[in-house]
């Protein structure tokens, strides 16, 4: 059988609509574009008109829809790859392609041979040992989560898992990650009609991530949440998946004559025009639903069948059906070749779908394969054994055209060159408003103990146990370093370490990998460049703390920004991208994959645009050569030395200290890449030699918060002397030493008998002994003047840290 019989007979075959497009004026074209939810700009509309005028015919409806999908910000990343005239505060220059000149440039310059596939495929791929490779992708699903948080989060997870299934010839997902940016749950200000309360969004998104990941049997073991009231209209939901695949399966190649086979769920009306935010007029009668509901069990079936078919080499290429459905999946696969699609063969959920709806539907849980005809029988057997449906909807041909028909009707007949290369570039303007140097503000009257408690209790620091415990982070049995650590399994880990060999079958192999994140939009409010460096530094530092090999780390970037049409917002984006570039080049860490999401701004109750804070998530992955040597962050015993890696300066702008004390100003933490890297190398070698008992990175809340977390997680106290902290000459207050957020710092616990060896390893790095651990469960800090300035029982600190989120989510 070469072509599957249609599952359901379509009742009505509508003739594809043809637009009277070519005669329209620009004004009418723009009106039509707005009405049809295409979001084309002027240049694009004119380019399409010119193309079809030259063809001497009007475009068909589905053709314009296909172009709208393929040329969308989502698929083509117009902002990142388009020209930008950028004024950096002094002079103006032209950036031809921001992506090529920042992110891609860094990867090229760093030139790591173990990067097996970067930016081309559905995920970035790096080598993992000799036989295996790791694929990692992080996606955002912001707009769907704003409208229907549970379904949006579910389909977000489902989508990124399919990206991993669709990388190379398919990878086995072994870890899910999730990072959220929400308004505080207790936010009580006015919200416009249709905007969900932040608490509801938080609860439902967590439930969606939980249900989809748990049902598919993928551990959700790494992530974070950031709270800021400016996310109230546009919450951000980042979801990521790491997969393992054999090295031979990294490359895909389609040959003419290969069949186009779809597997997984059926096609329905789900998510037509899903990219559009407005769903206010979605009623019972509405023909299309912008909202999709996930079906984890269907995706699990497709996963199992697909990996079985991969190992029997039954297909030559695979990709997932994401935004744009068949139109984007088939359109992408056919690039450089050509495709002939017969939509009447697609399996449908409802019998009355119109051809263009089948072509563009974003129904979940679908994958597209390129299958040599001789393998079809065997492939059908594999999929039917898993109870998974399959249909042949056409074949790849060497025509350079994308031809889609429904029975006798032509639905789409497009030149692939025009589809993929015809997008006109529009120059945008960007301005960087150099912030005025702000001096440090007033001094706080709060006591140190009070400040520390407030820091620990702050929403952006407090325990995430309420959420983490809803996720199954143990399934597949490879979670070596868990998200919650310490003697009571409730301390905040820096990164998770996964041993994926239950999936590979190499049970003797003790290698694993670690995954971590860096995110701090607060720094970006003042300086997006320093924010990007700080995020990259934090992600790397977190990897170091669990014993990963940071010289083999790889980064992923996810930019979420407001409208790029606002030159000031775009200027901040350019700054952030340049920061990401300089971090990657400086640390020698390549970017392997990334994604961007723009237009994260909405009108508030007063009709004023509320943009989100420019947000950059840096995710990092690195191998852990021997998972049995991985570290946790809790103090292991009394009488051990505490060493601090890194230099402390007075860097309090955007800090938690400023926020809890109601202060502002100061300077944004600035990464010194070269000295940071020296420190990481030194400490990395000490950890590899087994000389370090525990390690924890210093981030929000500085030294005081990090030390508190290590102590109450291990249930041992600590006594430190601030005078022993390596610091810049201008720092003179205990507050600044305890709460400054200078980057690149790590706190380390070392056994007394290992101190000499540790210091030998750490030669050349700034490592200072600042105190020791004690049996008494208190945190004791001696100030610069030699007096004890802080002495707090660990129980009080832990209670403050644990209480916030359960209370907020009540």
């Amino acid at each position: 059988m070469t072509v599957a019989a249609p599952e359901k007979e379509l009742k009505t075959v509508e003739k594809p609509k043809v637009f009277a497009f070519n005669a329209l004026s620009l004004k009418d074209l723009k009106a039509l574009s707005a009405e049809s939810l295409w979001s084309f700009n002027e240049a694009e509309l004119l380019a399409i008109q010119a193309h079809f005028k030259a063809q001497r015919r009007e475009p068909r409806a589905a053709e314009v829809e296909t172009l709208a999908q393929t040329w969308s910000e989502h698929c083509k990343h117009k902002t990142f790859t388009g020209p930008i005239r950028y004024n950096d505060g002094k002079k103006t220059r032209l950036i031809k392609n921001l992506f090529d000149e920042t992110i891609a440039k860094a990867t090229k310059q760093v030139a790591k041979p173990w990067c097996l596939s970067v930016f081309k495929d559905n995920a970035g791929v790096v080598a993992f040992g000799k036989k295996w490779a790791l694929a990692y992708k992080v996606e955002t699903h912001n707009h769907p989560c704003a409208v229907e948080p549970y379904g949006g989060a579910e389909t977000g997870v489902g989508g990124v898992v399919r990206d991993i299934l669709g990388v190379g010839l398919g990878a086995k997902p072994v870890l899910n990650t999730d990072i959220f940016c929400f308004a505080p749950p207790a936010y009580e200000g006015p919200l416009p009609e249709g905007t969900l309360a932040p608490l509801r969004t938080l609860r439902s998104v967590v439930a969606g991530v939980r249900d989809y990941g748990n049902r598919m049997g993928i551990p959700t073991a790494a992530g974070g949440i950031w709270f800021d009231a400016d996310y109230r209209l546009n919450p951000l939901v980042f979801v990521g998946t790491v997969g393992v695949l054999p090295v031979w399966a990294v490359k895909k190649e389609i040959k003419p004559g290969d069949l186009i086979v779809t597997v997984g769920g059926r096609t329905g009306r789900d998510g037509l025009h899903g990219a559009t935010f407005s769903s206010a007029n979605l009623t019972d009668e509405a023909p299309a639903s912008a909202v999709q509901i996930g079906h984890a069990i269907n995706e699990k079936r497709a996963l199992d069948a697909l990996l079985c078919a991969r190992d029997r080499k039954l297909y030559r290429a695979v990709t997932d059906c994401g935004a744009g459905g068949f139109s984007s999946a088939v359109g992408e696969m056919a690039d450089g070749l050509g495709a002939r699609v017969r939509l009447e063969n697609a399996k449908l959920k409802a019998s009355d779908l119109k051809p263009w709806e089948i072509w563009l539907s974003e129904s979940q849980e679908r994958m597209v394969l390129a299958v040599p005809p001789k393998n079809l029988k065997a492939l059908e057997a594999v999929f039917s054994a898993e109870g998974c449906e399959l249909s042949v909807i056409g074949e790849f041909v060497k025509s350079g055209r994308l031809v889609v028909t429904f029975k006798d009707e032509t639905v789409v007949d497009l030149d692939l060159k025009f589809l993929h290369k015809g997008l006109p570039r529009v120059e945008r303007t960007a301005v960087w408003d150099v912030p005025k140097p702000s001096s440090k503000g007033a001094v706080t009257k709060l006591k140190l103990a009070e400040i520390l408690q407030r820091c620990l209790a702050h929403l952006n620091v407090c325990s995430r146990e309420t959420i983490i415990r809803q996720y199954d982070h143990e399934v597949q049995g490879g979670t070596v370093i868990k998200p919650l650590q310490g003697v009571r399994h409730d301390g905040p880990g820096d990164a998770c370490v996964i041993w994926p060999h239950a999936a590979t079958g190499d049970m003797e192999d003790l290698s694993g990998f670690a995954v971590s994140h860096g995110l701090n939009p607060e720094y970006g409010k003042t300086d997006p460049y320093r924010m990007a460096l700080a995020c990259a530094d934090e992600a790397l530092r977190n990897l170091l703390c669990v014993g990963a090999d940071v010289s083999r780390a790889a980064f992923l970037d996810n930019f979420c920004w407001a409208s790029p049409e606002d030159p000031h917002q775009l200027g901040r984006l350019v700054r952030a991208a340049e920061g990401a570039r300089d971090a990657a080049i400086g640390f020698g860490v390549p970017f392997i994959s990334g994604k961007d999401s723009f237009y994260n701004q909405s009108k508030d109750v007063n009709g004023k645009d509320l943009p989100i804070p420019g947000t950059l998530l840096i995710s990092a992955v690195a191998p852990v050569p021997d998972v049995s040597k991985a570290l946790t962050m809790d103090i292991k015993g009394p009488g051990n030395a505490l060493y601090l890696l890194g230099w402390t300066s007075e860097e309090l702008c955007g800090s938690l200290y400023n926020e809890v004390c109601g202060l502002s100003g100061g300077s944004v933490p600035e990464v010194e890449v070269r000295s940071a890297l020296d420190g990481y190398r030194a400490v990395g070698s000490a950890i590899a030699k087994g000389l370090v008992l525990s390690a924890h990175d210093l981030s929000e809340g500085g030294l005081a918060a990090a030390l508190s977390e290590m102590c109450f997680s291990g249930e041992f106290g600590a006594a430190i002397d601030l005078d022993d902290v390596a610091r810049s000459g201008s720092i003179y207050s205990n507050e600044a030493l305890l709460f400054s957020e200078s980057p690149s710092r790590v706190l380390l616990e070392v056994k007394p008998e290992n101190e000499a060896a540790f210091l030998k390893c750490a030669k050349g790095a700034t490592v200072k002994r600042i105190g020791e651990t004690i049996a008494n469960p208190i945190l004791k800090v001696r100030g610069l003047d030699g007096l004890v300035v802080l002495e707090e029982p660990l129980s009080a600190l832990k209670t403050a840290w644990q209480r916030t989120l359960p209370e907020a989510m009540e």
Partner: protein
Amino acid sequence: MSEIKPRNGASSYQVEIKLRPDYTDAEGQGALGLLHSLGVNTAREVRASRLYELRGALTSAQVQQAARELLCDPVTQEFRMFNGHTPVLNGMNHWRIEVWLKPSVTDPVGDTVRAALEEMGLAAAESVRVGTAYHVTGKCGRNQLEKAVARSLANPVIHRFTVTEAPL
């Protein structure tokens, strides 16, 4: 379980699966907490139950069999006929909230139940939709309840819901 209206020779049945009264109803308690947080302080208790709407050329005996063997856990749950068309005035002390996915929204649980029915030999089931009912005890106002439900138990973008006075 009740037969609602025959359509094209096919029938539509509704089955309600309730937790037995002596079991703690966590879902109901969660719903009560949500209603309280939205100002419906007069609600004293909420019991949640699962609703199934089965369409197809099924007999009433077959639907009984499906409810007994597939939809209901006989240890903790019981199934019953539900008739939504006879509201009984009771001084607004008991309310029934029903939340269903809109017809245009995919219902994965319903699809899975339909496949399971087919496996147990009831291939005539054409479609299954799943909903939730909340039985609220306490003197509440309809407007107040409707507003609270739209902000907690249902998302009007994908759900349709009803709030009716209910018999005990």
